[in-house]
């Protein structure tokens, strides 16, 4: 009876909670005209209610961390590869290569920094990343929001060890549903892969209770060269990409859907193996998943190669100069739009790359431009990054260039990373801009992809996109790390050589005595040479011109001077005379 009661109670509790949490999984596939296939997984849990102490679908491990560190919003992206805007268009979530984390804390947080470091340390354990290396020297707070922190670790390598704990956070793990497609071997073979965890509060007009959304995302880009058979065409299929088809859906999910964006069909026509359940807005094929599912697309190799999908706004970032004398950092923003666009550029430059603020130049198509707003926080060695935030209006069809000069600094020898000659990673800059909705990729006004695709306010309003530029490496002056050994040897030699004279000077008293003359090697050689010369050139011996310019004194003529050593008696006399006079 007791057991039954417990069971009933458990069922009752679970039903109560099930109502407050909903889970859905979606896959958005977009074959690109350039021969790449972009797939975006999104696993969404929406939850009502503030505390995470009891939950069915939100992972406890993450919920506890969120609760404990008073996190209001959290974004983590672990990325390998660089998103190529020119050939892939816009991603659903733009993430720079490496690890990136940003968080906003609740307004009543006492010590934001303490919570921030606590959060990053906890997450580094949860996701097996190096987020614990985040400190004040590589994170910054937003200029507008005191409770916002951001950091990126461009050197982070993303691998299976991150994917496995990431998958464990999903309600169905990787055993059922769309997540079963994520095999580490295939995921890490993609040209680009990015794991994301995005937690944010949702604005809720109808009810007063707080509503939260936790999205786990994966972005993958496959190259048809590697996934199509004998790379003669642009074919793709789920099995080619992920190594397996879909067998069972996740029973916990309210929605399980696959969307295929067929907009590339205009330039590269292709045939899908299954008819979609229905079309959304004419070019998005929707499949409801409820069992074994497989999908493939057959496309011929295009006659005309599309190599660029010109997005409206894209960036380019590089360093100028060579050697270690002068360096420059250039960020270029290309605006292909027919209207001017207002962008915010945030540069976070590490402390070991001190920039010269007076060299900051902003030019647009070669003409100097005044930024609309500019915030600069100079960095501090080993403490704080150089933070530069510029708001600009980009003219239509323009290339805007932001350049600043920097210095290469010497580091302490323990601050060099292993493989010091590999170089130092400099993280990406952030470019925020509002562009028309119809030229962006997926939008995230609402929780689910389908809602966002369906939303009616498309094309008439702007959408804020965030672009991340490329990372780069620089070579700081790197010592030869085999050098310490040489230095030790050299220093010891110098000390050993200097010790004798110093010891003599400090411990012995100098006394004036008449020295015994001991002929040295050189004078013996010289004498024998003179003797030989006399013997050989006997006839010319009386020649005047042969007289030496430097007089050589015989031992009897020499006396010992306390500081000058062996000197002639004449010299001594003169010295004495000088002193007396």
């Amino acid at each position, binding site marked *: 009876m007791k057991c039954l009661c417990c069971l009933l109670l458990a069922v009752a509790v679970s039903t109560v909670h099930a109502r407050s949490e909903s889970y859905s999984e979606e896959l958005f596939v977009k074959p690109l005209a350039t021969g790449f296939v972009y797939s975006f997984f999104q696993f969404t849990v929406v939850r009502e209610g503030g505390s995470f102490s009891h939950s069915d679908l939100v992972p406890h491990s993450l919920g506890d961390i969120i609760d404990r560190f008073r996190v209001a919003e959290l974004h983590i992206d672990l990325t*390998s*590869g*660089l998103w*190529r805007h020119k*050939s892939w268009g816009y991603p659903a979530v733009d993430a720079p290569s*490496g690890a990136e984390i940003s968080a906003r804390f609740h307004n009543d947080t006492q010590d934001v920094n303490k919570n921030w470091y606590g959060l990053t340390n906890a997450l580094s354990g949860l996701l097996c990343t190096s987020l614990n290396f985040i400190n004040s020297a590589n994170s910054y707070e937003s200029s507008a929001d005191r409770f916002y922190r951001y950091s990126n670790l*461009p050197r982070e390598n993303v691998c299976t060890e991150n994917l496995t704990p990431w998958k464990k956070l999903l309600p169905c793990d990787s055993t059922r549903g769309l997540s079963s497609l994520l095999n580490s071997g295939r995921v*890490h*073979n*993609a*040209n*680009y*892969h990015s794991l994301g965890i995005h937690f944010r509060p949702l604005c809720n007009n109808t009810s007063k209770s707080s509503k939260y959304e936790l999205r786990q995302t994966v972005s993958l880009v496959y*190259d048809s*060269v*590697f996934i199509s058979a004998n790379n003669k065409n642009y074919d793709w299929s789920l099995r080619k990409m992920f190594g397996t088809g879909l067998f069972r859906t996740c029973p916990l999910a309210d929605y399980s859907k696959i969307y295929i964006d067929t907009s590339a069909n205009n330039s590269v026509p292709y045939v899908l193996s299954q008819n979609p359940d229905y079309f959304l807005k004419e070019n998005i094929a929707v499949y409801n998943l409820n069992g074994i599912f497989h999908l493939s697309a057959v496309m011929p190799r295009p006659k005309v*190669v599309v*190599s660029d999908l010109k997005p409206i706004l894209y960036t*380019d970032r*590089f360093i*100028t*100069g*060579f*050697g270690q004398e002068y360096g*420059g950092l*250039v960020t270029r923003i290309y605006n292909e739009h027919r209207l001017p666009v207002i962008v915010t550029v945030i540069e976070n430059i590490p402390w070991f790359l001190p920039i010269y603020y007076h060299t900051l130049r902003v030019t647009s198509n070669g003409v100097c431009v005044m930024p609309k707003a500019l915030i600069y926080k100079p960095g501090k060695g080993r403490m704080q990054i150089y933070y530069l935030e510029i708001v600009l209006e980009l003219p239509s069809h323009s290339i805007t260039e932001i350049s600043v000069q920097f210095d290469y600094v010497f580091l302490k020898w323990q601050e060099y990373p292993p*493989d*010091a*000659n*590999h*170089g130092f*990673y400099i993280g990406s800059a952030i470019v925020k801009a509002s562009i028309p909705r119809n030229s962006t990729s997926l939008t995230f006004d609402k929780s689910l992809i389908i809602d966002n695709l369906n939303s009616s306010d498309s094309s008439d309003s702007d959408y804020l996109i965030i672009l991340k530029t*490329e*990372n*780069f*490496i*620089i*070579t700081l002056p*790197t010592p*030869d790390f085999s050098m310490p050994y040489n230095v030790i040897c050299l220093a010891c030699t110098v000390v050993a*050589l*200097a010790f004798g*004279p*110093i010891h*003599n*000077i400090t411990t012995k008293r100098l006394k004036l005595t008449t020295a015994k003359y001991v002929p040295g090697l*050189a*004078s013996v050689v*010289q004498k024998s*040479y003179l003797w030989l010369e006399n013997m050989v050139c006997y006839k010319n011996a009386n020649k*005047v*011109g042969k*007289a*030496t*310019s*430097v007089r*050589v004194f015989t031992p009897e003529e020499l006396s010992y001077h306390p500081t*000058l*050593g062996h*000197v002639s008696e004449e010299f001594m006399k003169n010295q004495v005379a000088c002193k007396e006079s």
Partner: protein
Amino acid sequence: MGLLTDPSVGHGALTSIFVRHHNRFCILMYIASVILFCMLAHDSFSSQTYFSENALLPGLVKGQLNDNSGPSFKDHYKELKAEAQHYETETPHPYLISKFKHLRLETYSHNFTLNYPLKKNTVYTGRNVYGILRAPRSASIESIVLSVPYRSPSSIFPSTLPGLAVMFQIAQFFRQQMYWAKDIIFLVTEHEQLGMQAWLEAYHGTCCGSPGVLNSGKLSGRAGAIQAAINLEIHSEKIDHIDIKLSGLNGQLPNLDLVNLAHRLCNKESVRHTFNNVDGGAIGRNKVNTYYTNLSTMMSMVMTQATGVPDGNHGLFHRFGIEAITLEGYEKKGRGIYVSVLQVGRVIEGMFRSLNNLLERFHQSFFFYLLPSTDRYVSIGLYMPCLVLLVSALFLKAFSAWIQNSSHQKLSDSSSTQSTISEHMHVGVVSGIVLGSHVIGLILLPNFAPAYFTNFWNHIPTHRALLLGYTCVSVAIVCLLPILLKKCLNSMKVSNWVLLHVICLLELGIGLLCVAMHNFSLGYLTALVYVLPAVCTKSSQNRIIVKFLWILVHPICSLFWITAYITYITFPELSIIDYLTKVVESSGQWMALSTVDNMVYGNWAFSIGVLLLLPVWTAFWCLMFLPTNLPQKSKME
């Protein structure tokens, strides 16, 4: 510390030996230096090359490049030849761009313009094409370059079309591989080194020559820090041997590991490989023969390096800290076994896969070396003493001149009550001469004088105008200086001008050391020429033969002798009149080329001539004609 400051130095027995016999010592050092230098080519001084960077792992994988997947080399080559014939003198840019796009590379082109510095309003334009293979999973932070200079059929240089076809073949193969960790840039340049320089300047956003000369334009696609570059010049489908060229701008050399890598992989693919067109190894040669071959190879390397002009497009990379070499494939003439293009392709594949393994930039192994053979090297520790011997002869001469003078003065002070004013150093005059000679050098820098000369003699060709201008200035210095000095400074007679002498010797010595730090070959060869007259010169009363010797080594005369020698080697059949005109003509061309090189690429050769050799020469020349007393004092003693 007695160790560091011993005032008795300069009066010891050893010193007096050195001072008394400094001339003999100088000659001895000179001879020893030459002998030591010749000995370097011997096996006991050079050592076997080895890989210092373990990450390269050369030849660990089997070369997989083949003709089976996709269009073969022959298809690419046929297509390319047809296209090249169509554009007789230009580069087929549209074809190259579409070809790269078809190979599914990110394709860009790059425009540049050259404002020819010696003639106003002369502008040349060019365009490079490059494709970037983006490595999967990498964030484009590092890259490797494979470049081919495009030569149209009308070019005077041997064709590089087979090399370009190999590049297409390689790009096609590389595109299908998953294992790349670094991006690969396939670059086709135009106008030989000019295109390469423009591309590199644009890539790094800098300007290396004089500002405003080479407008290098902008690049819209980049691939991070370039780790290494390989330049391909393959002249034929049937290759006799691959020559590996290293010498870069201003004598810079690539890391020895990269050179070894090329040789090792050629060996692995059984491709005949040479350095300066000489086979390596001692197989089939006796000891004496090996030594002579090594010596001649080393000498040819020294000669190439000393010019400071890169012997291929790879040479321009070195300045940017990018290790680069050129693989030049010579045509197999006649019948017999030849090396196929695919074999060379597999060598390149192997090199790229090795470079792909690199975790760090090339930093191990040697950057300063001489190669007497493909598999032996002479390290800097062994060849530097040759130059040090020469330079120390100069220092010894300066030292003994100074000591001699000071001891003379002491003697004269003690023996007679003559006032010291007559033995004044004349610091003012000396510094005037030194300063003046350097100002002349500064004025003659390529940024100032050549433009003036070409403007002045507007109607004659540039190179003649330059030669005429510089010769006039030199002749004026040679003839007018002695007269001027005699007239103006007659009142300041002293027994010798030791201060000027010492300054000249020290400047020459230090200058030569500095030059040799960067370009040993240039430093050493210059030292061989200039140390001899410098050592023969005395502080006063120089004989006419020394003056004649100095005339012979005047920078312009030296240029003339070098051109005369090279012309004689290249055209031995010319009659004497033709020969002389040819020599004069090509001296002028050398000079023009050198100034242009200086202003476009930042080559120092001309600057060294004008800023170091000419001022030192002028100062020595002054020294010989400064008025002096008859040296009576030494006789009186």
